[in-house]
């Protein structure tokens, strides 16, 4: 065998090991045990989906991992959990695979590396953009304007000009939407493709699963949020966070409609739609993220993939800061502190938009697709 052939072989081998990480290989081993045991079938969608398979290709494991909501019911019920020799730990293994799949399907391709040290990335982005916003604000605006109480129409835009907001926020958000859409397409293809035409019924099933977080119900009585006892903390806290986030999004959207279509300029009255959406959204976002941070801190660490904690803490922290600075902005908007608070809030939102496609935020997309695929499997066309 020549040297070139050897290096070709090495390359192929290297490629093969890159395709099949330890987590995938371990998941396949664990699935062999789970599929012969099946005690967990009553818990969530993962196990019936597993029972419908005999072979676990990489795409199957990616799908099952993204279908997993990390409720940990299967770990605490597992007769084979560590220290048993089989060492079955589906929540931690699937969490690792999920993270690897986010990296694999990220667009553009090389950007997946950003998932490696995601806590540093998210925290770094937040620091950078808050600093940038503060510095820019000070540079652009006369400090006399920045620290004096601004009232009346267009007060916010005297601090940060609207064109700059539109350029930075719109640009980064637009890029995030494109990146995440392409990531979603890559994921859908990478886990088995269409497999038939669009069916409305499974799409409705999947939407109900997404909106109710049915799979965080543990088959009716809840999940093992903290230890082997059952609760629905994570389900309700995640709902608060999700709908809080959506309300904040609705606040921005209605604000934009007011501005561009009706020509109504902010700041709006407290009882106006944008402020109401934003206020309640901010409150729910703070409750949800603070609660989820609490759950993460006190939960039994055994079924947790510790390597991923940095990114998760950082993202929850960022969302909490966005919610809380938004609320503080409402409180101080008629005072001299408004300028700084607006810059802070804007910097944090900008950081979120920038890291959006390279953070745990993408789990919502892949999870939804996994639920759709699962619903399609359950209702064959």
């Amino acid at each position, binding site marked *: 065998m020549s040297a070139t052939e050897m290096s070709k072989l090495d390359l192929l081998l290297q490629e093969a090991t890159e395709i099949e990480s330890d987590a995938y290989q371990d998941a396949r081993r664990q699935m062999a045990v789970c599929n*012969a045991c099946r*005690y967990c079938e009553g818990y969530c969608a993962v196990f019936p989906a597993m029972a419908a398979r005999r072979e676990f290709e990489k795409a199957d494991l990616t799908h099952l991992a993204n279908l997993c909501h990390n409720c940990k019911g299967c770990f605490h019920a597992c007769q*084979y959990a560590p220290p048993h020799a089989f060492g079955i730990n589906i929540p931690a293994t699937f969490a690792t695979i999920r993270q690897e799949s986010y990296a694999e399907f990220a667009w553009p391709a090389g950007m997946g590396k950003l998932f490696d040290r995601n806590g540093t990335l998210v925290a770094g982005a937040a620091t950078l953009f808050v600093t940038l916003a503060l510095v820019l604000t000070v540079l652009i605006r006369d400090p006399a304007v920045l620290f004096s109480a601004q009232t009346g129409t267009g007060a916010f835009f005297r601090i940060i000009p609207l064109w700059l907001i539109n350029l930075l926020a719109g640009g980064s958000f637009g890029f995030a939407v494109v990146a995440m859409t392409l990531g979603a397409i890559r994921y859908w293809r990478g886990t088995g493709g269409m497999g038939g035409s669009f069916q409305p019924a499974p799409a409705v099933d999947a939407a109900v699963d997404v909106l109710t977080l049915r799979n965080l119900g543990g088959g009716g009585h809840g999940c093992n949020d903290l230890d*082997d006892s059952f609760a629905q903390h994570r389900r309700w806290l995640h709902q608060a966070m999700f709908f809080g986030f959506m309300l904040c999004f609705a606040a921005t959207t209605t604000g934009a409609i007011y501005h561009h279509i009706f020509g109504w300029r902010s700041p709006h009255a407290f009882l106006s739609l944008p402020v109401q959406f934003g206020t309640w959204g901010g409150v729910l976002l703070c409750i949800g993220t603070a609660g989820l941070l609490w759950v993460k801190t006190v939960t039994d660490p055994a079924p947790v993939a510790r390597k991923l904690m940095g990114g998760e803490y950082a993202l929850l922290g960022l969302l909490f800061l966005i919610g809380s600075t938004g609320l503080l902005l409402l409180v101080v908007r008629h005072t001299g502190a408004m300028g700084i608070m607006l810059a802070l809030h804007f910097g944090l939102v900008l950081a979120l938009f920038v890291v959006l496609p390279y953070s745990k935020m993408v789990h919502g997309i892949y999870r939804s697709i996994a639920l759709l695929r699962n619903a399609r499997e359950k209702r064959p066309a």
Partner: protein
Amino acid sequence: MPDFARLYDVLVVGGGNAALCAAITARRAGASVILCEASPPPLRGGNSRHTRNLRALHPGPTQVLTDSYLEEEYWDDLNRVTGGKTNEDLARMCIRASQHAPDFLASCGVVFQPSLSGTLSLSRTNAFFLGGGKALVNALYREAAKLGIVLLTDTEVQHIQVEEGHATEAIISHCGFPQRIRFKALVAASGGFQANRNWLREYWGDAADNFQIRGTPYAQGTILKDLLAQGVQQVGDPTQFHAVANDARAPMEDGGLAMRLDCVPFSLVVNRDVERFYDEGEDVWPKRYAIWGRLIAQQPGQIALAVTDSKAVLNFLPSVYPPYKADSIREIAQMAGFDADKLEKVVADFNAAVRPGTFKPMVPDDCSTEGLVPPKSHWARRIDTPPYYAYPLRPGITFTFLGVKVNDKARVLMADGKPSANMFASGEIMSGNILGQGYLAGFGMTLGTVFGRLAGEGAARHVRN
């Protein structure tokens, strides 16, 4: 650190379902209770950790049980699997009480689920624990902790001091340190002796080395032996146990349920000498799975090989380890280390004896052999469609039946037939009172729950008086 100076009302030896049901019942009746589980916390619960359901009498459909399952049918099932080697009064009492077992467990936080796939079609007779036995064990420990029961893990009870049928104190090893526990009443719920290979060797000789212990490695039978040595009456045949056909490649201990193989009715099974030894298709698997462990234990080398082909491979649950797979019987035999010429002949003879029929995997069908000894009565189809598959089988022992004799109040009886003043027993340690041989799926947990509650009640009543 638990208070070892205190005089406890009730000491419960063991930490599985039978022990916890007794402890919770006694505590609810007002007794102070201390429970000693030999294993570390993640492996607590004895064999209950590996269980999945319990068999319960029910006059009509319940939330998790379909149709009805009445005393006569239940008794009939039990009587048949034990071949009449049972105690009818005790068995019928247990069967009647089983009606209330699911409600009691539910009151302790155990959640039941309707049965799903891969459960031997037991949805009419057996109530399934959501998430299986470990979830049940978790719920019982939570309830016990909430009630203020002193729960010790890593705590092995080594000796019970018994004087004239009256137990007074226990010598224990708590986290490796010797201690004593004083108590007024004792519940022995520490399981069989199946994990004690030296003890098994007394009856089985070298064959015991080839037995796989399906469940907890902590079932050493220490207290069983201790009590039998101190005048407690023995019950049951020491060679009898509940055993199934396990994957020969399974761990020797604690492999649990996933190691069992359900391929037998759809295969041809030979022993080490490549001879068939029993009718693989005698009846539906739920009624036969429990005899195959013993059948294999009685074969030379305690090993067998189940051979089937690609037609049948989806008729049973997948195995954890991949089966031997090849395009010829010869290759399969070589992979498994069995004589290839002989296996080819056994398969050829079998194929020649297969009579045409309509294959129905879930019910006894009309696919059988003619002129073959032993016959294959159902699901007999020619093994002729490659790839061929083979699974190596060993006996997987669930629990032994040798035990302490009890009465219908779970009170331990002494060798002279008199009831002990303050000793009670529940679970596998007294299973031989009802199970003379054979096994009925889900009966172990029924036995543990029913006699656990009786033992707890009796112990608490003894303490009050």
